[in-house]
């Protein structure tokens, strides 16, 4: 297990490095001029040149790259090209919002999806199974922004049950949670569908396994067979794809943040994209990729913990 973990952790380092380089290259190759974006319609040529120099955009690409890596190593993500705010500060503000949203959606997805997946698997080919399958198919087909808009329209505009704006007051937990409900639902219900489908098919696979038959032949009660033997085994493939689902979740959260006007990485990214703020843009992308890499690492380690074949492998 320790060997496995170390190997797994070491593997992320080159992965991260490549991701960083890729982000750097992509963003630098982008058209549009940050200096122009910053100076706006009154820009003069001298002004533009001076600003480019000030921002280090006139340096050769390799030098910019080395600076970029060096700064990252020191935990310095640079300052926004537009307002000079250190990117780290901006990320520190928005990251918790994105995390609270994506994690709570994931938790909701697991807490609803797993039991529903088990239930439909056990009622295979009955009406509960059919309706569950159709609903979950709709769930994985509906774009998160559309679900968000529908929830917003029904619960905020029509029924006036939930707020529409932002993420709630800082330090007021109740308010934060209150603002989190609809966005979490719009992401979490989609996650629920994914996890439910996965759990169902995994459970069906496991129920056909020999060891389930063995367990039955021992005279164990149905529930014990299902939950102690089948369920725990069915959970392993589900856990192994949670990392992938989290990445999907992370991607969808961008649209959700826009729809609900919530602060967060996604909102920051879209803004930076529009303003050609390369420093912020590349930092946000790096954070997204890093998040995804670490979530995958985390999931793999958990996976190692629950599967003895890896733990004692």
């Amino acid at each position: 297990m320790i060997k496995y973990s170390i190997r797994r952790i070491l593997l992320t380092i080159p992965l991260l490095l490549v991701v960083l380089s890729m982000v750097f290259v992509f963003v630098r190759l982008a058209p549009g001029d940050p200096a122009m974006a910053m100076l706006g319609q009154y820009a003069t040529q001298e002004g533009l040149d001076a600003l480019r120099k000030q921002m280090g955009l006139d340096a050769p690409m390799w030098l910019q790259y080395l600076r970029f890596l060096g700064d990252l190593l020191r935990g310095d993500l640079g300052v926004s090209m537009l307002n000079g705010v250190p990117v780290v500060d901006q990320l520190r503000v928005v990251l918790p919002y994105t995390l609270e949203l994506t994690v709570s959606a994931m938790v909701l997805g697991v807490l609803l999806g797993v039991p529903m997946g088990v239930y439909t698997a056990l009622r295979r080919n009955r009406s509960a199974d059919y309706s569950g399958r159709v609903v979950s198919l709709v769930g994985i087909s509906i774009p998160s922004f559309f679900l968000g808009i529908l929830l917003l329209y029904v619960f905020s505009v029509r029924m006036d049950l939930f707020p529409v704006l932002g993420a709630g007051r800082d330090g007021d937990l109740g308010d934060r949670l209150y603002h989190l409900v609809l966005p979490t639902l719009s992401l979490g219900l989609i996650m629920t569908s994914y996890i439910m489908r996965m759990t169902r098919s995994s459970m069906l696979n496991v129920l056909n396994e020999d060891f389930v038959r063995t367990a039955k032949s021992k005279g164990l009660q149905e529930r014990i067979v299902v939950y102690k033997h089948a369920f725990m085994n069915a959970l392993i493939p589900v856990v192994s794809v949670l990392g992938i689902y989290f990445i999907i979740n992370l991607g969808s959260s961008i649209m959700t943040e826009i729809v609900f006007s919530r602060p967060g990485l996604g909102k920051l990214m879209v803004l930076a994209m529009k303003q050609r703020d390369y420093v912020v843009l590349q930092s946000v992308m790096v954070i997204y990729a890093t998040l995804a890499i670490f979530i995958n690492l985390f999931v793999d380690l958990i996976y190692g913990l629950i599967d003895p074949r890896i733990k004692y492998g």
Partner: protein
Amino acid sequence: MKNDILLEVRDLHTHFYTDEGLVKAADGIDITIKKGKTLGLVGESGCGKSVTALSIMRLIQEPPGKIVKGEILFDDQNLLKLSEAKMRHIRGNRISMIFQEPMTSLNPLLRCGNQIAEAISLHQGVSNRDARAKAVEMLQKVGIPDPEGRAREYPHQMSGGMRQRVMIAMALSCNPELMIADEPTTALDVSIQAQILALMNQLKEEFGASILLITHDLGVIADMAQSVAVMYAGKIVEYVDVVRLFDNPMHPYSVGLMESIPKMDEVVPEDKILRTIPGVVPSLYNLPSGCYFQERCNEAFDACGKKVPPLIEIEPGHLLRCWKYGQQ
């Protein structure tokens, strides 16, 4: 006389309703197992042996399977009439089962000791600690070295033979009266096979259990069983004690089976190759009318194509399903 009969299966019909149509996997099975004896059930793959075993355990998946007809008398009670709760009390306790695939028949997430102890504490109502102690004892009985340590291991840490020993330990842990072994050695190396079979024989004696041994390997039958039922396409075609079967097989299918065993004590001439039964097992979806074996039988005649022959006792203790002998 009646008292020494442990299990009697009468006219068992187990059908599967699949997308492709109806499959009569067990189509009127009659077998009897005596106390302390071993009955061998032989036949090619897909002839319904395992279905018969699972029907006795009432572990047929429903749907698509269903036991449509018949009686399974175990200790004078019809298992098919029992409530699920009562049946559970019999499973693993009075009738236990060993499966073909030791690699996949154990739960990979549970320690072997716990998997054995689970059945013990369920059926014998002992504390978890006692159950675990008993499990270690059983592991020792099946000849596993360092049973204490092995009990704490997971299945993937063991070899196939080891795992099959664990399965046997599990099956015997509650002193069952009947042990159903479904091809227990097929997946194992030849050298291990012999060890496992010897172990089963030894333990049968020790525990006084009966065994229903399912196999396609007549060599195994010769070593283990007292009587044999030969099965073909969902039906018993010959039922007789082991000596008579080997000396004088009567059903053409049994004859074919016998002839396909290489005999160690005979020198096979260069020009004579091992004989096989021609043709393939008929599709269970589309059985021929009349005797199911007729297409592969080189002794078939008109009557065989008309009606399925009945199973009749042509001499005491020898049942046969063939028009050649039982012509009215």
